[in-house]
């Protein structure tokens, strides 16, 4: 890790390189997701059954109009990967926001108000912590059936606990600190104290949790899609593309390999970002 030796005024705000690398990767994937309709050489559902399992352009039998080759229905793999980024990004961002919001809110309330709010929240946290999150997500998705909004909610639901724990613990620590006591003495309302004084002071560690959580949400979404518990086809998701590719794994490796690489890249991005944020706090 590079340590800047020259004490400049802005040096303190300088972030570790991991942060920038992660942000660059995530930014690139978001850009691809947003611009997919413009960038993709074909529609993600355009079939050409006569081109089924065409290899990538650089291999024999490939052509540049289908750069990464085609799937079983002759759909362009690159286009499907680009549109697939939308599912991963939507799930990653939205479920982190929803889960983070929910968890922070509950943790904040539990830590600040104590009593039954705390008891109830703590019990909920304990129940949820008694099970591996992927386990719960699979059970719920299988029960509810596949769709993008459900997927987002389920993943938000399994991740709120991590935020709630940290928020609760930090609120407990902050509750009796001078600035909170001072605000209360000055007659500020509970709501104002919570939102203006407590929340900002507990937010930084939660951002780290959010970044770390994002990588596990992406992996969980991919795993659910792989098991056929993700979004409705023909909407492509990288996880379900790996599952489809698996049925032709020995004939057309590109169907399995590329979507997996896409997932790994995005997760590396999220992990780098989280790592950077963490180091910055240290």
């Amino acid at each position, binding site marked *: 890790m590079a340590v800047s030796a020259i004490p400049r005024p802005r040096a303190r705000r300088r972030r570790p390189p991991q942060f920038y690398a992660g942000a660059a990767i995530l930014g690139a994937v978001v850009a691809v997701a947003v611009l997919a309709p413009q960038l993709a050489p074909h529609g993600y559902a355009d079939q050409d059954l006569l081109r089924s399992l065409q290899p990538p352009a650089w291999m024999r039998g490939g052509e540049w109009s289908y750069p990464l080759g085609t799937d079983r229905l002759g759909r362009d793999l690159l286009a499907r990967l680009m549109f697939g980024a939308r599912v991963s990004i939507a799930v990653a961002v939205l479920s982190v926001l929803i889960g983070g919001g929910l968890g922070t809110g509950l943790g904040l309330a539990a830590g600040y108000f104590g009593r039954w709010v705390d008891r109830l929240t703590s019990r909920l946290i304990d129940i949820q912590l*008694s099970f591996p999150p992927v386990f719960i997500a699979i059970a719920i998705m299988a*029960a509810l059936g596949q769709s993008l909004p459900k997927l987002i909610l389920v993943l938000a639901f399994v991740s709120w606990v991590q935020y709630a724990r940290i928020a609760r613990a930090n609120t407990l620590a902050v509750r009796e600190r001078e600035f909170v006591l001072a605000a209360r003495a000055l007659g500020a309302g509970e709501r104002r104290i919570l939102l203006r004084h407590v929340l900002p002071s507990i937010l930084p560690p939660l951002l780290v949790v959010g970044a770390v959580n994002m990588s596990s949400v992406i992996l969980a979404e*991919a795993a659910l899609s792989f098991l056929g518990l993700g979004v409705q086809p023909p909407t492509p998701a990288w996880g379900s593309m790996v599952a489809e590719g698996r049925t032709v794994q020995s004939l057309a490796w590109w169907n399995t*390999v590329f979507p997996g690489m896409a997932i790994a890249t995005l997760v590396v991005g999220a*992990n780098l970002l989280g*790592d950077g944020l963490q180091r910055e706090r240290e």
Partner: protein
Amino acid sequence: MIGYLVQRLAHLVWVLLAVSILVFLLVHLSGDPVRLLTPLDARPEDIERVRRLYGLDQPLPVQYWRFLKDAARGELGESFRFSRPALELVLDRLPNTALLALTTIALTVGVGIPVGLWVGSRAGSLVDWAVSLATFVCISLPSFWLGVLLILLFADRLRWLPASGFESPLYLVLPSLTLAVYTTGLITRLVRADVLEVLRQDFIRTARAKGLGERVVRSRHALRNALISTVTVLGLQLGNLLGGSVVVEAVFAWPGVGWLMLQGIQTRDLPVVRAVVLIVGTLFVLINLAVDLLYLYLDPRIRYDHGR
């Protein structure tokens, strides 16, 4: 201390009750198990008769009450799918899952700790940089994809290793490798960070000042302290592996509880899902408790008596 234990165990009962209700509702909301069990060309009157035989014609609260009564006697019902006691099915597969989990942990410990210690004491070197990058990739790979690639390479192309099932120890290689990649990456990073942290601390400096050899310093002091957080994370990972390796078990058709649950969910085999969830939940809680206790033992500064 005893009070703490009793409290945690009593708590477990509440957790399991709450979860059993959740499972009950989820599985029932998600579809009619009898319709899944019966072929489409079966006659309606036969289907209704079978529904009665499974007790699925009763209202949900009645079914749940029956389940509680049976569960209190240690009976978790009979699998719809396999006409066998659900508990028997779960206990039958638990050793397989445990074996996979423990093999994975063994691989993780065997590789992750030495490598972590090694690079931790060489922070900033080229080796450290390379290992850091590798571990980053390790924790970012989707396990199911890795599993599929390993099957493609070692079973399909090279034909060195079996692809699925569990017939001999050889079958253990690919699934445990798949799972170990993530945990090893995690542990290596953790150990490295702990070593760095510990080496920075005062008592190591003191030990060095006392003239103790570098080797002694590293092994005795650094290792012991690094161990504390490593043990915690390993414990949590073990819990995750016991319940959470569903996807990898499915990829390798590994006859464990995770795969059993997945099949149970797909066929709405309520008793099996319930039994898996209850048993995995119990194990998960107990392992976490054991980790807490171990933590206590390793670091006497922590006490649990004042609640959490």
